[in-house]
């Protein structure tokens, strides 16, 4: 190979960029260009400088920052394996990333879940079906109605969020005078302030933090609740969404796409402890420790969607929820089991949590989800 060092370096950087991109780092051509310029600026005296420069150029968050170091090492090792680094095709995934936990079945399609076929599933189409579907428990929905329920839920949830966002608008009442506009408007009157312009306060919008249980016991519900979270996220200004089972995973970014299918696609890429055990207390603690800034005092509504079956210690749950309760505006606990006629919140976790819960409501069907509107 008659490559000059500069050409070799360029190739190295470009391939590293491609490699990191295919392994989860964001960015496109502009990032690669920035990386190239960065490497040129620091020069290539040693491996460390090169790594630091590339890291500064290619990363844009703590998560990426951590990922980068791993990827850089993997890439170097890989380059050493292939005798001529930069020539030939390289495999573009690290071993680690293929070990992702399998995504939950309900993210892949409609044919999933443990939904049992039900005898009264086939009834006349039309409004009555919608009405019935809206009140059917999510876990009892017959296979062939799933699709329709989804359409319905999206429509209703969209209506709800629309109403929510409209309610937050305030009128144009007189307030403090906006001098800038007033002067501009009154130039025609020789500067005499005849027409006044006012400054109104922007309506204070609440932040919403959704904390969704995806452990095994919630399997039948978490798919719908996820869509509920998506609908809320789309229309609230600040929503942070977390999944938890035994540990915590932030999915706010994954829910960002405009189409639901794209969001679910993105979600299924994320490794999460789908259908694993539940450690609510530990997950809450992680939230408190790592994301406490997202719980802004006074303006955050904390919404936890869980059945309260906790394998951890109830004291931890109580202590952590208490800490959250003290900070936020309102704690809403949605429990799908509350829809069952004979359910009593007596599980240890649930009874430990109840004192620190402002709203305790069911979330087993569409009607119950829509009823939440008044608490938001």
């Amino acid at each position, binding site marked *: 190979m008659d490559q000059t060092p500069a050409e070799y370096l360029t190739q190295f950087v470009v391939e590293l960029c491609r490699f990191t991109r295919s392994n989860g780092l964001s960015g496109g051509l502009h990032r690669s260009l920035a990386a190239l310029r960065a490497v040129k600026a*620091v*020069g290539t005296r040693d491996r460390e400088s090169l790594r630091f420069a590339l890291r*500064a150029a290619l990363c844009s*968050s703590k998560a990426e920052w951590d990922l980068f170091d791993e990827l850089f090492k993997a890439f170097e090792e890989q380059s050493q394996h292939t005798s001529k680094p930069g020539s030939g095709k390289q495999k573009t995934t690290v071993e680690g990333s293929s070990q992702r936990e399998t995504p939950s079945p309900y993210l892949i399609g409609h044919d999933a879940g443990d939904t049992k076929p039900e005898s009264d599933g086939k009834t006349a189409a039309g409004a009555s079906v919608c009405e019935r579907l809206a009140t059917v428990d999510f876990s009892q929905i017959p296979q062939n109605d799933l699709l329709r329920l989804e359409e319905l839920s999206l429509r209703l949830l969209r209506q709800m969020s629309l109403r929510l966002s409209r309610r937050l608008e305030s009128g144009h009442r007189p307030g403090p005078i906006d001098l800038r506009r007033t002067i501009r408007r009154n*130039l025609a009157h020789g500067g005499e302030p005849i027409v006044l312009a006012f400054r109104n306060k922007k309506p204070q919008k609440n932040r919403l933090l959704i904390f969704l249980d995806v452990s095994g016991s919630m399997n039948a519900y978490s798919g719908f609740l996820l869509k509920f979270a998506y609908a809320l996220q789309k229309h609230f200004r600040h929503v942070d969404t977390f999944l938890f089972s035994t540990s915590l995973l932030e999915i706010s970014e994954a829910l960002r796409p405009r189409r639901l299918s794209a969001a679910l696609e993105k979600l299924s890429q994320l490794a999460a402890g789908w259908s694993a055990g539940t450690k609510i207390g530990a997950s809450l603690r992680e939230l408190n420790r790592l994301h406490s800034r*997202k719980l802004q005092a006074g303006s955050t509504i904390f919404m936890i969607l869980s059945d309260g079956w906790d394998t951890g210690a109830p004291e931890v749950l109580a202590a952590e929820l208490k800490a959250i309760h003290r900070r936020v505006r309102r704690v809403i606990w949605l429990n799908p089991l509350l829809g069952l006629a004979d359910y009593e919140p007596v599980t240890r976790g649930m009874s430990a949590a109840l004192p620190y819960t402002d709203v305790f409501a069911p979330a087993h069907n569409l009607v119950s989800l829509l009823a939440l509107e008044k608490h938001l």
Partner: protein
Amino acid sequence: MDLKRDRDATSPGSSGRQPFKDVDALVQGFERLNYIADRALATAVFLAVQLRKPLLIEGHAGLGKTEVAKVLASLLETALIRLQCYEGLDVSSAVYEWNYQKQLLAIKIEEKSDLTVEEKQRHIFSKEFLLERPLLQSILAEAASPVLLIDEIDRADDAFEAFLLELLSDFQITVPEMCTIKARHIPYVILTSNRTRELSDALKRRCFYHWIDYPSLEKEIKIVSTRLPGMEADLRSDVVRFVHAVRQLDLGKPPGVAETLDSGQAVMSLGKHRLDEEIIEVTLGCLVKSMEDGQKIRDAGIGKLLGNTE
């Protein structure tokens, strides 16, 4: 009067003076000013200066994010212009504002003059009546590129972030009543964020990124020795080791370097030569800032934490 014509003067070629030879020079420069920077941070700052791209620094509180900009400004011997972001920050307090009272007076004074309306308008919307806020100041800098510190950008809202995007890519500000002002000297921009919310991708894309983590033991001892030169070596290492042990605990707010320095200062002014349980107990307030965290440290056993550090 379109200042766009000044474009030639702002092309990178004319200000092509490179302030730093290489990353090492920058590390040494920072150290001269009592800021201990590791190579990763120095590389990021070096790149930001060299390639004139903003640098976004994230990290926990009290680890010297803001300090980077201050030190950089004094190293470059240039002005530091600081914009502290907060919720509800708007263009009139970040960029510019008209001096309305003065404008109203001017209108009154000119009432009897025979100037045309256009002339009057031009007069009251001239530079004389413009109040410069930080972002406009950074664009208007006459002598040399200032360092523009946009502190805690995550606190400002999305709308402001979008405005900032425009500024950071073109370095020009349009005052509709007057003209478009283009930067003579493109400022060095440093943004800091505490990660209360994710910043938009578009903004992040335009920046170099650096994550400031808690320093290693050696580095922190070095930091303390530069910032508190009067401290005895034994005591210094005691304090830093204890803080490192505390950071291992599961605290709500682990102490940053600022807390280490506070605590060291406190112990020193109490006239102690070594750290013991009693002195830690009375100065615990320097280290942790909540009752729960203090309790956690006591539960873990101050003596034990101190012992672990040996």
